[in-house]
């Protein structure tokens, strides 16, 4: 047997386009496996020179799945650019409603349509049924729930942002509309059903993890640090807060850090095989400073959740690991459904809040030249950093997208699963799907995650199976 390389391309049931390469030696043992992000983003470059108020609308176009996160992160930065530190209650609550709607639809989409085929049929089930069509055929009620929950989230986005995808609601210093009584009532009519479906989805995720705990412990499970935004009282807050990072044992690496100073705590490393950078915690360094973000990190790192059903679910989740951080990649699904329920609870509270019908929408202040906007996107902490000149033009933009933070964890997950399941055996599609299952747990958005045009040299190499470079082409 000779050494060979297996390529999974494209990775399926994830957002965006990526590939996995798996290197095997002449004995069929996996020596290396990597996730490559092969899309190219470039937004950081081409918004340079554009007027700053355009950015929340422009920058969200880098994604069609969770554009609201980019819309709001940019808007939060631009609030500071126009000198507004605190929005009116109506503006902040409208944005929060938009964000919870976004979280709700994105988590529902991922759980029901992207990952459920693996959980319902098994990682190595027949590929002919291990897909969303198979789910619709065997579990039609679940498939329909997924569609209806996603639709509900999208309706919330439309009511708050003006459109279901790529709306314009958040503007520097506030919001451009409130929630009409008619919009509110239409959404309230459905909330009880959505809550019931959210509870049911949480139960599926929880039961799956508990029933397959041994599998989950052995499948892409590895210790890591975790990063999230956190409210001042330690509560989970998906829209706003300060930065908290915990180590593998739950000890705080830093806490309540004002995210305007994020660059003092987080740095990014470039590696040669991916357009995606590798962020790390500065105080630990690039080798070991990587961390996880997203539902698992948020549930691990928060002290409590401020909605009763999700808090009860969090306690159950944390009990599995005796209150210590949960490091199971497959634990993401359970954590994600806790957040789904939390979002539903928050939506219900907000819909009953009369502030959403307020008329005071936008504030103004003294112009500033630089600002950072952070938000907890469905996939994790999202960083937007801008500089704006005296003519109102953007001169610098840096984005650290959630999936970028999960770059190292996903590569570890891929490598761990490949070595465990693919070494020395006859490799089947089902076994290869294990690698994709590990990636899917993180719900990566690969289209968001690549870095800036002009920041990184583009290099294409052709290698033989021994790793020798046959040809190389590079641009700078």
């Amino acid at each position: 047997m000779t050494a060979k390389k297996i390529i999974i391309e494209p990775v399926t049931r994830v957002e965006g386009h990526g590939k996995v390469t798996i290197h095997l030696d002449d004995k069929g043992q996996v020596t290396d496996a990597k996730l490559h992000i092969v899309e190219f983003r470039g937004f950081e470059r081409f918004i340079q020179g554009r007027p700053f108020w355009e950015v929340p609308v422009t920058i969200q176009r880098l994604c069609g799945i969770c554009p609201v996160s980019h819309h709001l992160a940019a808007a939060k930065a631009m609030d500071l650019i126009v000198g507004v530190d605190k929005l009116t209650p109506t503006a902040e609550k409208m944005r929060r409603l938009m964000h919870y709607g976004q979280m709700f639809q994105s988590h529902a989409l991922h759980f029901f349509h992207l990952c459920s085929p693996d959980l319902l049929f098994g990682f190595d089930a027949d590929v002919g049924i291990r897909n969303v069509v198979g789910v619709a055929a065997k579990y039609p009620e679940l498939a329909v729930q997924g569609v209806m929950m996603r639709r509900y989230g999208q309706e919330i986005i439309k009511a708050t942002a003006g459109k279901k995808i790529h709306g314009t609601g958040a503007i520097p210093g506030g919001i451009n509309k409130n929630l009409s009584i008619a919009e509110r009532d239409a959404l309230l009519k459905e909330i009880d059903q959505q809550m019931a479906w959210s509870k049911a989805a949480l139960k599926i995720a929880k039961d799956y993890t508990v029933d397959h705990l041994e599998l989950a412990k052995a499948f892409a499970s590895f210790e890591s640090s975790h990063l999230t935004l956190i409210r001042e009282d330690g509560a989970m807050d998906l829209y706003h807060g300060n930065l908290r990072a915990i180590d593998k044992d739950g000890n705080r690496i830093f806490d309540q850090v004002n995210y305007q100073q994020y660059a003092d705590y987080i740095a990014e490393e470039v590696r040669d095989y991916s357009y995606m950078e590798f962020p790390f915690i500065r105080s630990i360094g690039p080798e070991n400073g990587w961390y996880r973000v997203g539902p698992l990190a948020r549930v691990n790192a928060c002290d409590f959740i401020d909605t009763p059903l999700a808090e009860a679910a969090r306690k159950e989740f944390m009990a599995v690991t005796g209150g210590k951080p949960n490091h199971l990649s497959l634990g993401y699904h359970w954590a994600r459904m806790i957040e789904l329920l939390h979002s539903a609870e928050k939506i219900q509270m907000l819909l009953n809040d009369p502030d959403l019908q307020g008329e005071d929408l936008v504030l103004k202040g003294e112009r500033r030249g630089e600002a950072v906007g952070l938000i907890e996107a469905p996939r994790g902490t999202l960083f937007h950093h801008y500089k704006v000149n005296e003519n109102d033009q953007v001169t610098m933009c840096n984005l650290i997208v959630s999936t970028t933070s999960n770059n190292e964890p996903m590569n570890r997950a891929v490598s761990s699963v490949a070595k465990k399941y693919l070494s020395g055996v006859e490799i089947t599609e089902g076994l290869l799907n294990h690698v994709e299952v590990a990636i899917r747990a993180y719900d990566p958005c690969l289209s968001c995650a690549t870095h800036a045009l002009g920041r990184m040299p583009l290099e294409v190499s052709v290698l033989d199976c021994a790793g020798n470079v046959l040809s190389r082409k590079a641009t700078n």
Partner: protein
Amino acid sequence: MSDEIKFSIDGVEIKAIPGQTILQAADAAGVYIPRLCAHRQLSPHGSCRVCTVKVNGRPQAACTQPAAPGIIVENNTDEMKAVRTSIVDMLFVEGNHFCMFCEKSGNCELQAMAYRLGIAAPQHEYLFPSRPLDASHPEVFIDRNRCILCGRCVRAAKELDNKNVFQFVGRGIHKHIAVNAEHGLSETDLAGVDRAVSACPVGAILRKRVGYSIPVGERLYDKQPIGSDIEADRSSAGK
């Protein structure tokens, strides 16, 4: 009235007064002839050619062609619609018009015209020109990527604001709007409230820091297609 002029547009009799253009007479009668460079408060320009109609069988710009007794005007015909579609199509590909995130979206006459004409995507190839912005003015910015060279800003500044701010320079594909200053718009006497700013039919000259303040659904052309205000005059008059 003895000096009243009568002519027809698409077989409908239109009355005009001497000195009116075909477009002005059509507007008064509630008949919409699509246009981009024409503006009710500005002198006719005849540059965009979107208002092209056939007058006694010959193509003419309705915004500059005087109404004359007995002329037969073809406006809303398949042939004229095809001509306009092609012209608007070319305006799109000649510049960099990204409606999906442009702050003028929903209030843009070019976009509204494309919707009215049923243009889903341009048929011609994009030229993707490289055009500079002028953000030097504290209240107004120019994004030449979206300029369609209608000249409304040139005329509005002169005719309504009594200022000399904008002018065309260059020829052919290199023609563009220039400002009457060496180092950009900030050196001119343009003010944010000037009519030259609000006269721009597209997102080329815009007031700063007010973009996206009107929610989707509430913008001008979210509610009604371009031209329907003129057509409403006709239906309300029972014509």
